[in-house]
């Protein structure tokens, strides 16, 4: 060991310590950043003298990170479903307000009961008509809400696909930077943080799995195994539907040429906002729309009129409630899409449209005299009203695809529908809460494992400061020795 060597060693120690302090300062600067991980400078003693920084290492925990990605995806899927269910919930409203189709149906049958007690009173007849109008309006507006929920989900899917594509494009840039930095002696740690941040955002949109490549790059697959990124981003495409009326199905989302959500697909994703939105658009909202359509069909059938001639030859026709396809009746046992949107009161029975409310008592609303029940024209004729009350209370056959019991009276069916929606919303919001708790737990576990902690950094800073002081001291000691040596010449 010579004096020159001592100076070199001290100098390398100073350089290394400076580097380490700069790493500490980076950690402290990003201590509040959720995407920042703790960096440490790896020092090595190599050939020759002193120490050098071999590279910057970053604290990562891929297990926790993947757990966070998965929980984030499933939490986002569930919250997309829950927020749509909240909007659907508005169609049945508060039970106290009694604006749901079920409550209004009950009001309609009560009005009919009252009318059967006072068939000669036109004011009561008008109140039956207005109760009927309330029911049909409620069905119309519920159907419009469902359509707008589906339309919104469809638009959100489009936005989500756009985000996925732009995130994948950003990912490509960062991934190439990581590969470059990994292949050299560059510092990849900050780029890796940025790349992970993109993955976090991507996992909110679609459930993903990642596979590391040997060169530092990464491939991304959906949770159903479809390639989203491998060297290059794959195209995720989606055609938005402009008018999603009842019975129309939205387009599928394609990734890498394979449908991953919607449509008929074998490789459907199961988590992520995209999965939640597609479930709303193609499943939940469709089922609820079906229930509304079935209620409308039940109403039309319950108020249908039959040929009252001595020898009936004419088919049954729609009575008080009619629809776009009237006056013929809809199918007697299976779903007719879009009925809830087009059900309306027959103008012939609506006083506000110049009709006669007493036709409810007499029949012949459809305008054909053959369907008149009250042929004699008696003011206290109640047979038709009693018949309507009976058919409203009688069991009907409903389409089983609506997930409710298929042969019950219309009133019970409407109540079942409310109960189905409430239960679904409740379980969905409980599930969403649970999943978001899991996701935030995973996020905090990840951050406590890999994030920088201020106290740790400050402790490191103290010891680094001491090292720096000691090395500086060494340099000044050697300098003093040289000074002594040089003074011996004078």
């Amino acid at each position, binding site marked *: 060991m010579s004096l020159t060597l001592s100076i070199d060693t001290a100098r390398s120690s100073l350089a290394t310590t400076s580097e380490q302090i700069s790493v500490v300062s980076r950690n402290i600067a990003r201590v509040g950043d959720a995407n920042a991980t703790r960096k440490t400078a790896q020092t090595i003693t190599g050939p020759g003298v002193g120490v050098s920084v071999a590279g910057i290492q970053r604290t990562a925990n891929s297990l926790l990170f993947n757990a966070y990605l998965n929980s984030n995806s499933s939490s986002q899927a569930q919250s997309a479903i829950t927020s749509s269910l909240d909007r659907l919930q508005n169609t049945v409203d508060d039970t106290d307000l009694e604006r749901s189709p079920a409550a209004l149906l009950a009001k309609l049958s009560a009005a009919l009961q009252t009318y059967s007690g006072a068939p000669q009173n036109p004011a009561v007849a008008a109140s039956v008509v207005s109760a009927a109008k309330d029911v049909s309006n409620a069905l119309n507006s519920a159907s419009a809400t469902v359509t707008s929920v589906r339309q919104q989900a469809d638009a959100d899917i489009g936005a989500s696909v756009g985000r996925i594509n732009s995130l994948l494009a950003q990912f490509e840039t960062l991934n190439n930077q990581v590969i470059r930095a990994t292949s050299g002696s560059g510092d990849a740690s900050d780029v890796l943080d940025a790349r992970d941040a993109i993955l976090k955002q991507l996992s909110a949109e679609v459930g993903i799995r990642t596979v590391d490549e040997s060169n530092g790059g990464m491939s991304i697959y959906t949770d159903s195994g*479809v390639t989203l990124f491998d060297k290059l981003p794959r195209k995720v495409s989606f055609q938005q539907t402009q008018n999603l009326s009842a019975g129309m199905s939205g387009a599928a989302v394609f990734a890498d040429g394979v449908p991953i959500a919607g449509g008929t697909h074998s490789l459907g994703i199961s988590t992520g906002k995209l999965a939640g939105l597609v479930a709303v658009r193609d499943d939940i909202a469709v089922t609820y729309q079906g229930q509304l359509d079935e209620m409308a069909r039940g109403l039309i059938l319950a108020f249908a009129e039959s040929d009252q001639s001595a020898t009936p030859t004419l088919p049954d026709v729609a009575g008080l409630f009619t629809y776009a396809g009237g006056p013929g009746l809809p199918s007697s046992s299976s779903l007719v899409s879009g009925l809830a949107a087009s059900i309306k009161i027959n103008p012939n029975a609506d006083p506000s449209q110049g009709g006669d409310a007493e036709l409810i008592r007499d029949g012949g609303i459809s305008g054909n005299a053959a369907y008149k029940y009250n042929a004699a024209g008696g003011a206290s004729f109640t047979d038709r009203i009693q018949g309507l009350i009976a058919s409203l209370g009688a069991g009907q056959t409903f389409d089983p695809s609506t997930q409710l019991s298929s042969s019950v009276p219309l009133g019970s069916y409407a109540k079942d529908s409310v109960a189905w929606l409430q239960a679904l919303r409740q379980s969905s919001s409980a599930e969403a809460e649970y999943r978001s708790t899991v996701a935030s737990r995973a996020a905090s576990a990840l951050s406590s494992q890999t994030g920088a902690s201020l106290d740790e950094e400050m402790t490191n800073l103290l010891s680094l400061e001491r090292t720096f002081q000691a090395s500086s001291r060494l340099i000044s000691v050697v300098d003093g020795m040289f000074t002594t040596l040089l003074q011996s010449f004078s």
Partner: protein
Amino acid sequence: MGLYGLMTTSISGMSVQADRMGTVADNIANVNTTGYKEASAQFATLVAEGHVASYVPGSVSSVARRAISHQGDISYTTSPTDLAISGNGFFMVQSPSGTPFLTRAGSFVTTNGQLVNAAGFTLLGYDLLNGGSTSVINSAAGLVPVSTANLGLKATPSSVGEFQVMLPSDAATSVNLPSANGAFADFSGKTSIITYDNLGHQVTLDIYSAKTANNQWEVTVYDNAGASANGGFPYAGGSLLTTLPLTFDGTNGKLLTPANGTLSVNIPNGTTLSLALGNTTQLAGDYTPMKATANGNGPSAVDRFEISKNGTVTAVYADGSRVDAFQVPLASVASPDNLTAISGNVFATNKDSGDLQLGKANTGALGYIASGALEKSSVDLASELTTMVEAQRSYTANSKVFQTGTQLLDVLVNLVR
């Protein structure tokens, strides 16, 4: 005779000390020169043939020595093209006029694509590309400047890759097999990988996996260029690259046939890509790609050089791919301390030093190459300063001898008066 003799003796003593001071001056001047080796002066007596009866003073002569084999301290820098040798050996460099020399000064920077050190000498190595160059063990023949010039843009066609997936054993049997290329083909999984043809075009391979029967699968590869508008079936004619039936062991889910587990795909306008299927399994669960990747790269430019311990110069391309481009040999000679020192911190071989022996770094007696480090001058300032004090004292003593001799001559001359 005697008095003149002692005067010439003391003059020779003064002149060798002056030589020694010269080496000290040189050493101190080069105390921070990379790869400088300290010079020193060694003395030898010249004894006059005399009679026993009388003593005849002789004189002293100096021999310059250079401690070329003395390892200097290695200190770190931040440039990866700064090279130091830890142990024996020399870099082969060439002067601007093309003469090969040896040096330990490895502060190379990339100038016009070549690695040139501070003194203007260019690093030499064996070309590993373009057929390689012949290496001759005892001469500089076959050495070329390490240069990015002939590395240009380069594309590597894909030749090997891996395709390892977990196939879902409970999947439904495919009705319309992907290999039939029907519009409504059904399959259990699709993964696409990017490969490159001979010219560096990207060729995206769509790999479909479909179940044909229990424990029987079919892997079908299409060229994505022929995909339909939405990126799937039906593909244009000629897009089907290959299809391969796989059989799995129903008891443990491992691949039975093909036993070697290779899927060969002829990339259009490219080479044959061998995809290793070895770890593909068939288990309960979802279709999961484990590893789906191929080598190769599109055209990209050289980003920088990296030098390994054994002297392999790797060209790192902008897209992160790496190609071993040069092999930097280390030269050794039988007697390195006898090498002729030439301006610019380089050495040339001569009769005394022995001939060149070229070899790979980190093998045999040769040292290894440290990248991002430099060998400092082997001069120790403190010992040079002490040498200087010593030389100064010896010179003064010699001058005193001379002074005394002249005084004695004065006495002798004054006798005549």
